């Protein structure tokens, strides 16, 4: 039971980080009709910038600058590429984003080289324990920060002018344009928000219990894709539920791996994708989605 609780806690904290990434993915899809595969490299860019800058300017400033760099990169991708290809087929745009992702990723891998970069989290690698239930401090802080950000995001999405403009133009872009809503701006802002969320997730994903900044951090972002898709690509609530579901499933599969050995080692890394496939079998547009990809 304590093992279960401990895994659940770890799963939720991991899931909250997936949810941050998935939320960005969903708002990009809603506002620019792009399935963006740039998230992996944006995440790595965030982690890399924070790690590199920490040495020279200190941890907190590095976090701020790293988040800004990632947001700026997302903004530039939207303005330079996505905005100009508006109206292209969803599938071509998706492949364009894969191209952009590969370009950024390749450069980052070259920059990182064989260095082992660490983000010097001031909270270190210690664990936090209640009885026999343990959670790394990094994950605990991650959970708190993610919860605050997610709550702020949903409040803004519901009440702010940006949220309304975003939802209106996602529902009917032409009519939103007739109201004077500039879709380009809505979309650019969505990319910036997605960049910020990805960088914050990156900050925690490269800390305990996972090792430092390396191209493997990229694989983590890949696991947020199934979170977004199983929740329903156009549903922000779905991204949250999907993220938590994937986080918990992954943590459970890792924790009980001895019992799951018959499925092979490293099963936990594929669990997110298995969960996604299982959900899509029953609900092709995801748990809360309204659009299937093909119908967009």
């Amino acid at each position, binding site marked *: 039971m304590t093992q279960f609780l401990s895994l659940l806690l770890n799963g939720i904290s991991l899931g909250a980080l997936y949810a941050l990434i998935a939320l960005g993915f969903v708002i990009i899809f809603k506002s620019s009709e792009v399935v963006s595969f740039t998230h992996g490299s944006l995440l790595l860019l965030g982690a890399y910038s924070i790690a590199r800058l920490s040495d020279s300017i200190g941890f907190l400033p590095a976090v701020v600058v790293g988040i800004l760099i990632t947001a700026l990169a997302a903004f530039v991708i939207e303005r330079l590429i996505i905005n100009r290809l508006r109206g292209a087929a969803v599938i071509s745009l998706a492949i364009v984003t894969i191209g952009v992702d590969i370009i950024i990723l390749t450069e980052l891998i070259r920059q990182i080289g064989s260095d082992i970069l660490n983000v010097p989290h001031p909270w270190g690698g210690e664990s936090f324990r209640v009885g026999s239930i343990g959670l790394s401090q990094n994950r605990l802080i991650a959970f708190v920060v993610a919860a605050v950000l997610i709550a702020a995001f949903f409040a803004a999405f519901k009440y702010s*002018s940006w949220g*309304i*403009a975003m*939802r*209106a133009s996602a*529902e*009917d*872009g*032409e*009519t*939103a*344009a*007739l*109201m*004077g*809503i*500039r879709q380009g701006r809505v979309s650019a802002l969505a990319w910036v928000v997605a960049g910020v969320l990805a960088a914050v997730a990156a900050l925690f994903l490269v800390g305990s219990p996972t090792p430092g900044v390396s191209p493997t951090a990229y694989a983590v972002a890949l696991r947020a894709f199934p979170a977004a898709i199983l929740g329903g690509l156009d549903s922000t609530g779905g991204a949250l539920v999907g993220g938590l579901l994937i986080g918990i499933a992954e943590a459970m599969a890792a924790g009980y791996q001895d019992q799951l050995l018959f499925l092979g080692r490293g099963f936990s890394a594929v669990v997110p994708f298995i969960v996604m496939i299982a959900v899509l079998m029953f609900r092709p547009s995801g748990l809360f989605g309204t659009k299937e990809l093909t119908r967009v």
Partner: protein
Amino acid sequence: MLSIDALHVTYGGAVQAVRGVSMEVPDGKVVAVLGSNGAGKTTLLRTISGTLRLHRGKVESGSVTFDGADLVSRDPAQAVRLGLVQVPEGRRIFGRLTVEENLRAGGMGNRDKAAKSKAQDRVYDMFPVLKERSSQRGALLSGGEQQMLAIGRALMASPKLLLLDEPSLGLAPRIIGQIGEVIAEINRQGTSVLLVEQNATMALGVADLAYVLDVGEVSLSGDARQLSQTDEVQRLYLGHDGGGEAGERRVRVPSGKKLSRWTA
């Protein structure tokens, strides 16, 4: 004043939707544009509101100006800022947004906070039902209420000229009558209106001036009351040819070109 001069519009370089149309909407007037399906009415409004590009349409020649400002090269947000707001055909309210959020969306192009809150009071005054249902999702409203919401949403931008695309579409005669009254009231409060309609009875009842659009060209124009007396309008739009009801939506072969293609 809105002036359109010798306007030619094509879609995809091939379909000639508007062919040499000239018309004017003087300040403070209601101008009706009548025409059957495919006559080019919506195309005309898209040209004014700057949404033509979203449909791969292009102004080939001619000019559209509002108070002297050229509209052809502008985007929809700029048109809204100039005071031109279009209520799209089929209402197109945001069904997943609440009534209040729909109205807020309508005010997005309006940066003046005070004007916005005044506009909201005016909308709730004019359509009390929207206030009652302000927290309900738009999709739950009836067709007539949705049309009210679509008009209210456009009023949130405090337009100088309101462009209405077939507001009577799919509504019961009693509701159409109400829409006519609403248009007259909006105009009385100082907003010019360009009203595109197939329901000639309602449109000519409320309009000062009218144009009849026939396959992309103006075939008749003039004072609305005089126009409603002409044979052609009587026959084609007011249903006095022995057949249809007054104000009934009529389906005609949109263009001779298509017909010849079918028979070829």
